[in-house]
């Protein structure tokens, strides 16, 4: 039988919770809601949702606590809902293990896209090995992970070793935001300088190589104060 995907919404503002519920149920998701952290925690363990939408400003506890507790035993996708000007809060949530965040206020399309991306990535982790080396392709950009080649509009782009490392990391996590710290950790190792300047400089060079106009990027987007997000892999966007 066709099983609906379930989403748990942990949000204390009833009007927002209602609006998300309506949007998602009309798009064929099964909805469970919690208005505070305690109920949310209980529902995560009892109803095992396919995805959690988590508001960080809950009345009874810090949303980051929920992420940390859940991550001890589960990799279920968690999307954080947060306000635009609180970029530090977003970084903390992402570093605690949240998969992605969505900025208040958000439109229906954006919300649905984020949910699909997060669920797809989670499926990919579960079925890792079968398609993890499948090339990335979006727009005119193709990245062949096996041959370590980056091809833009049919032409091979020459990246330095570090630049390739960054691009391939972003591409493998396409559609998701990667924080500065995560990228630095994975490219330069855990003992790298805290200063993200070297990452920003490399990123600027990458953009010059793969973006037609660095001021209007098509592939790699900056989430100011948080990190970078690469355009979703079209091969992945095709289906589950």
């Amino acid at each position: 039988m066709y099983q609906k995907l379930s989403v748990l919404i942990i949000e204390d503002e009833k009007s927002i919770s209602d609006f998300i519920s309506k949007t998602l149920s009309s798009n064929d998701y099964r909805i469970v809601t919690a208005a505070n952290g305690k109920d949310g925690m209980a529902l995560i363990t009892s109803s095992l949702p396919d995805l959690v939408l988590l508001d960080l400003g809950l009345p009874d506890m810090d949303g980051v606590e929920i992420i940390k507790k859940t991550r001890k035993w589960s990799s279920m996708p968690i999307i954080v809902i947060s306000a635009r000007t609180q970029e530090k809060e977003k970084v903390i949530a992402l570093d605690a293990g949240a998969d992605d965040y969505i900025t208040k206020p958000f439109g229906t399309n954006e919300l649905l896209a984020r949910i699909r991306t997060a669920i797809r990535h989670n499926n990919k982790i579960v079925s890792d090995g079968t398609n993890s080396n499948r090339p990335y392709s979006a727009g005119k950009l193709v990245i062949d992970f096996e041959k370590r080649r980056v091809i833009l509009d049919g032409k091979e782009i020459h990246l330095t070793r570090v630049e390739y490392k960054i691009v391939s990391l972003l591409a493998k996590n396409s559609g998701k935001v990667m924080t500065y710290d995560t990228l630095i950790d994975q490219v330069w190792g855990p003992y790298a300088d805290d200063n993200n300047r070297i990452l920003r400089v490399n990123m600027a060079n990458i953009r010059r190589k793969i973006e037609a106009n660095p001021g209007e990027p098509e592939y790699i987007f900056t989430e100011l104060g948080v990190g970078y997000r690469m355009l979703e892999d079209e091969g992945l966007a095709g289906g589950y």
Partner: protein
Amino acid sequence: MEDHINIKKGKSANRPAAPTQEELVRSHKKDTMISLGVFFVVTIASFFFNELASDPMLNIAMLYTLGVFIITRYTSGYIYGLMFAVFSVLSVNFFFTYPYQDFNFSLEGYQVTFLGMFIIGILTSTMSSNMKEQSRKLLEQEKALAEQEKALMEAEKEKMRANLLRAVSHDLRTPLTGIIGNSSTYLEMEHRLSNGEKRALMEYINNDANWLLNMVENLLSVTRIDNDTASVSKSLEPVDEVVAAAVIQFKKRFPEAEVHVTVPESEPDDVMMVMMDAMLIQQVILNILQNAQLHSGSTKPLELTIDEDEDNVMVSIRDYGVGIDGDRINDIFNGAGFKKGESYTDGYKGMGIGLSICKTIIMAHNGQISARNCEEGAEFSFSLPKEIEE
């Protein structure tokens, strides 16, 4: 202006607190001690010279003159210097001229020496105490000037705050009126409205709400600026990333709008990085873009150009619309987008808050912001100083 004069008066009233009786006595005691000490030392040294040197009188006179200098330098007023001059003349006469251990003013030629010493003593003490007085006055003047400047800045800040508040309350009320009006129309007359009318009401509400959100975000961004020092927490950011982020944000709100971004050609590894609060600069770019979109009255693409010179990075945004009103252009960043009594001709979407917040943000970055009319349309530009990372 009235304000700042008052502030100044209030401050100067409690500035040079008059010394109390006790303090006066203490300072006189100190000065007396100094004078006596110097007199003692000088006299001892003079005895020393008197024994050793072949022509002691010259050295001794110099020593006493030095004494006058020292005392005037380290005591207040010129009374101590004067006293010292008198005593030195007496003591030279008493100790070092014949007859020793006795006063004798009749010695030939010595009257001139005594008189000379006396005059030198008086002159130096009055002169140096005059100089001390003058430098004290200068210092005071400088202090007063600094205070005046501070008061002026304070007044400027106050003015901006007042303007902002005035614009905010106006700008908040108008879209709220729209939202409340349209939604209650819908709720009360739902059955009598056609689908098209319902949709129109919803669109109004949506527009107004977006406008409100934009304003609230602007106001929130100002809270990132430190209230006392008017400074922001800056970090090194690549300029083109911030511009790109702002353009994406802008297109989210105006999907049909077009922006052409021009980034200067540069060497690899030479990345244009500037110390800034990226979220705030993004807000500035976003505000200027939205302003151009809403007020230029043109659908031609906007042009955003990044440029740099030795000390600054410049961002300018050009539109090809109607340009800025001549009598508004000087006041456009002061939150005075509208004048008293003037009604909004272009609806509530005045330029008040957005641009005044731009100015606040750029000032907090020690940058410059300006607006000018071009042959066709207007150009807004701001610059940020290239700073070395702390």
